[in-house]
């Protein structure tokens, strides 16, 4: 199967100081790729660069044959890329329903949007009871569901998730991982999953990329990374 996302030689950073060094990465449609590594390895910077928030100094970001590198950030969703940022980015002043609608607004409003939002309420029961609540009244778990649901309303082809399990109860983490697996199998969604929670990420991922100091040190099938004791000790701390 051909690659949905093909990243080559990506170098990027802040204020002229590179954080990512010549990162190569391939994600196929209908697969989940875990991005692992210690704090400060550059995982968040990688996602921010892919979605255009950080401008690369060098390298290519090709989605389905088209170069994304020079597109404005707000164009990315139109190409099928959804980024759920670290810290989730629920808009606290807007209601749950408004947050969800915002996720699909770029396709246009109207009945199709309403249907897509209602679909999310079916998928995420707890949100349905909170439609009119402003975001700042939600619990951490509800916020994570909302951020994820909002990204899905736009029906992306590639989902960039930055530590979705952060601060969540294990049961909820398992639920989210199961949902990702289901979306991958049913809709062909590709996921780039940044995680501190290495075990749960590897349990759901097809591929894994291990980063250290802004470089990719290993890219391999997830099962292989899980079995590699030396690699786990060196970079993943277990």
């Amino acid at each position, binding site marked *: 199967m051909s690659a949905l996302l093909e990243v080559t030689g990506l170098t990027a950073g802040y204020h002229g100081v590179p954080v990512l060094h010549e990162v190569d990465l391939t994600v196929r449609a209908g697969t989940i790729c875990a991005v692992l590594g210690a704090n400060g390895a550059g995982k968040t910077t990688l996602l921010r660069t892919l979605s255009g928030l950080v401008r690369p100094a060098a390298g290519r970001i090709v989605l389905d044959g088209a170069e994304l590198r020079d597109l404005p950030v707000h164009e990315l969703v139109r190409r099928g890329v959804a980024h759920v940022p670290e810290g989730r*980015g629920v808009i606290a002043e*807007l209601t749950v329903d408004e947050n969800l609608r*915002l996720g699909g607004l770029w396709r246009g409003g109207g009945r199709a949007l309403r249907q897509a939002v209602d679909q999310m309420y079916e998928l995420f029961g707890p949100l349905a009871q909170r439609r009119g609540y402003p975001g700042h009244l939600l619990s951490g778990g509800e916020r994570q569901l909302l951020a994820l649901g909002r990204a899905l309303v736009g029906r992306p082809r590639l989902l960039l998730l930055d530590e979705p399990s952060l601060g969540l109860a294990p049961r909820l983490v398992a639920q989210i991982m199961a949902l990702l697996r289901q979306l991958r199998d049913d809709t062909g969604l590709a996921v780039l999953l940044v995680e501190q929670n290495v075990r749960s990420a590897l349990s759901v991922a097809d591929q894994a990329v291990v980063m250290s100091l802004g470089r990719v040190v290993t890219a391999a099938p997830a099962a292989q990374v899980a079995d590699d004791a030396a690699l786990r000790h060196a970079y993943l701390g277990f």
Partner: protein
Amino acid sequence: MDRFVFLTVDGLSRGAVYAAFALALVLIWRGTRIINFAQGVMAVVTAYLAYSISNATGSYWVGFIVALASGLVLGAVVELAVMRRVEHAPPLNAVIVALGLVLFGQGVLGMIYGNQYRPAEAPFSRVAMTVAGVPVVSRYDLFVFGAVLVLMLAVAALFTRTATGLRMRAAAFEPMVSRLLGVNVARTLTLGWALAGLVGALAGLLVLPTGLGLHPTAMDLVFVSAFTAAVVGGLDSPAGAVVGGLVVGLVLSYVGGYVDSAATPLAVLGLLVAVLLVRPGGLFSGTTARRV
């Protein structure tokens, strides 16, 4: 009692205008964190345009409509051509650029129209109608209330009922997240300035006939009152702008009527200082939501 009724109606009528003008300031503040000190001169420019067009066509309403439309365009042009360059700079840059626009605008208006007062026409009688022998409210006051009410309802509907309004609110609260969700944030900012230009133009058209008339500096004092209104209500709150405007209008009217008209500027400043000391976020600041 007659006097109290008169002062109250007059205060509310002025307050409605301050509310509209404060709303213009709030619209820009929410999106860009800039206090648009040029809002007054922008309104004066559109008022002069209304003056010229009304004179040429003989119709107040043609001038009125053209002024509102030109306010919309002027707001967008000022944002695109000038303010965009300082939106991400230190706050003082925007203040200085806006003050530069004030000097520039007032200078150009003075060159074109001269620096004497010109009459600002009112489309309805400003003489109060009497109820049971007591003068209560003029037709012009009713027009002011009606125009501001329609404006407020339209702006509220835009923000709460339309996709564009949702985008504008999202972009104002969380620009980065909004961009990730496909919102062209730069465009929502331009739209906010355009809308503020229109709202400010309306406020100018409504207030000028109640003062000395048309002059390049005619909106300077209105700006101070409206700025106070916006701070009183909370710079982030459109609803606060409305309440703040009415409060400032009433305070000015009562102080002017019962104390001394020379004391009104002091009263405005006193109110501003009091609010900043007691509730710096404004009366409508509420519990500020955590920024995620």
